[in-house]
């Protein structure tokens, strides 16, 4: 085992770094820039049962050390994902984490069943935390009972491990995490975006067509770290941490806080080569610190393990 390899349910990763869902599409574009097999895994863009156009534009806005997005889960729908998006990835070995969303439990079940049966997907990521759609999405993510029921139903149909992606828009992240763990989740991913807004000074109105958007980037990193640290005290479930990772040192902080792997979102827009660069830097740092494995960087008493 190398210094960097990590083993998570459904995802045998040669390093702990994956691009975050929605920040990498299905790998087509960035796949022309470097070999996707350099990545630990890829979290795919959310797939819904039917094709979605998403929200009107403007869909993104810049904020201090962050950005707002309100894409609105645009995607070609389950069928096209199976027919057009997954096949180009067949020649690659990189594990895939398929992010799924929906507005009804039945939607989620249908997408989960089909995607997990595709053979190419290593695990599912239940998106119950998208702040940019009116129905479903975040509603499932703030009500523990709904979240648990959804998790249970998706687990029942899924052929691969199921991760649940948690929303930071909550007064107590431990409640939802506990609910989905009891319902059978194989892992947690967090954080999704914090709901925010930007005002267009020229008009006095919200800049995004959707009014609100999801805040991501380094601005939210302290919130992500806090929630991961908090959950690590209560659970041994694998955690994929994300929120504001821009440099290799950030990855180390997430691992120290209790994450088992990380995802990189917004940083891909600032620099589309960021993932392989981070993997390289992380490797050098571990070599320089002379640790046998990434996880050895963790302070001993941190967390429940």
């Amino acid at each position, binding site marked *: 085992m190398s210094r960097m390899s990590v083993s998570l349910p459904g995802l045998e990763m040669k390093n702990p770094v994956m691009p975050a869902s*929605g*920040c*990498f*599409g299905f790998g*087509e*574009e*960035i796949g022309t*820039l470097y070999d996707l097999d350099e990545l630990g895994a890829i979290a795919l863009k959310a797939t819904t049962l039917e*094709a*979605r*156009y*998403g929200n009107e*534009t*403007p*869909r*993104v*806005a*810049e904020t*201090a*050390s*962050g*950005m707002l*997005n309100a*894409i609105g889960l*645009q995607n*070609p*729908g389950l069928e096209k994902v199976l027919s057009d998006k997954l096949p180009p990835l067949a020649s690659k070995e990189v594990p895939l984490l398929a992010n799924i969303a929906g507005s009804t439990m039945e939607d989620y079940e249908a997408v989960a069943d089909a995607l997990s049966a595709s053979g190419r997907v290593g695990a599912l990521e239940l998106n119950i935390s998208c702040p940019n759609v009116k129905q479903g999405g975040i509603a499932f993510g703030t009500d523990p009972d709904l979240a648990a029921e959804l998790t249970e139903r998706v687990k029942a149909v899924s052929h691969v491990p199921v991760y649940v992606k948690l929303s930071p828009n909550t007064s107590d992240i431990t409640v939802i995490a506990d609910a989905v763990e009891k319902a059978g989740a194989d892992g947690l991913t967090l954080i999704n975006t914090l709901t925010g807004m930007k005002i267009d000074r020229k008009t006095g109105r919200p800049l995004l067509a959707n009014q609100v958007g999801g805040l991501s*980037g*380094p601005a939210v990193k302290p919130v992500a770290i806090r929630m991961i640290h908090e959950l690590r005290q209560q659970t041994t479930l694998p955690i994929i941490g994300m929120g504001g990772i821009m440099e290799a040192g950030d990855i180390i902080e997430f691992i120290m806080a209790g994450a088992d792997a990380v995802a990189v979102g*917004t*940083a*891909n*827009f*600032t*620099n*589309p*080569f960021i993932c392989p660069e981070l993997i390289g830097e992380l490797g050098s740092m571990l070599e320089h610190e002379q640790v046998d494995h990434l996880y050895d960087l963790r302070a001993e008493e941190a967390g429940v393990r």
Partner: protein
Amino acid sequence: MKKENMTITNHRRIARNIYEMELEGKLVQETAGPGQFLHILPPASDSMLLRRPISICKTDKKTSRLTIIYRAEGKGTNQLAFAPEESRLDVMGPLGNGFPAENVSPGEHVLLTGGGIGVPPLYDTACDLREKGIELTTVLGFSDKETVFYEERFRELGDVYVSTEDGSYGTAGFVTDVIASEKLSFDRIFACGPVPMLKALEDAYPNARGSISLEERMGCGLGVCLACVCRSREDSDGTDYRKICSDGPVFSWGEVLL
């Protein structure tokens, strides 16, 4: 596409809040036609994560240099305005697909129509067309006299009409007013500028042959994030779209919903 620290070889103000910048770097060799753009990270900032899309105004592969023209508008472009010559700029590009100048046949008369900060990509287009011996007429619209730029440059390549919204220079009004009043005719039209201008043009000349270049707020600039979509005009089920960054920014006349 390259991501490169380009060198600023020239940088000057050419009109009110309008700057011309010359950049040198390897990515110039990869440009594939007029109307592509660069995605520029604002310099001297560590709080801005998003790049700024700026059109390429002129390329010179021999010297590996290109020119951009930008308006110091918000936080990022105002930072850009402070970048000293000889310093480096983090640039991604060339991105997108430009104006199909190569499709224009000898003998065609092309009308170039640019509004404000939409003018720059038309200059490279004009140069390419002119090199092919194509006859050009250019109509440039600005808000007022102080923001007019590149009139002389275009004049070297063909007829030029200028309008300003407040009438402080050239014809008072919009580019469409000029085209109508001067009864300009054309075989093909290339336009870049604010959406209301493009819409007025497409409405006025619904059957024209030509292309428009669009702007939208962008994330990745590569077609990854879906920040910059617009709807196609023939949208059967309401989910058909184009990505301005990677399918555009130049689209065929009438292709997308404005």
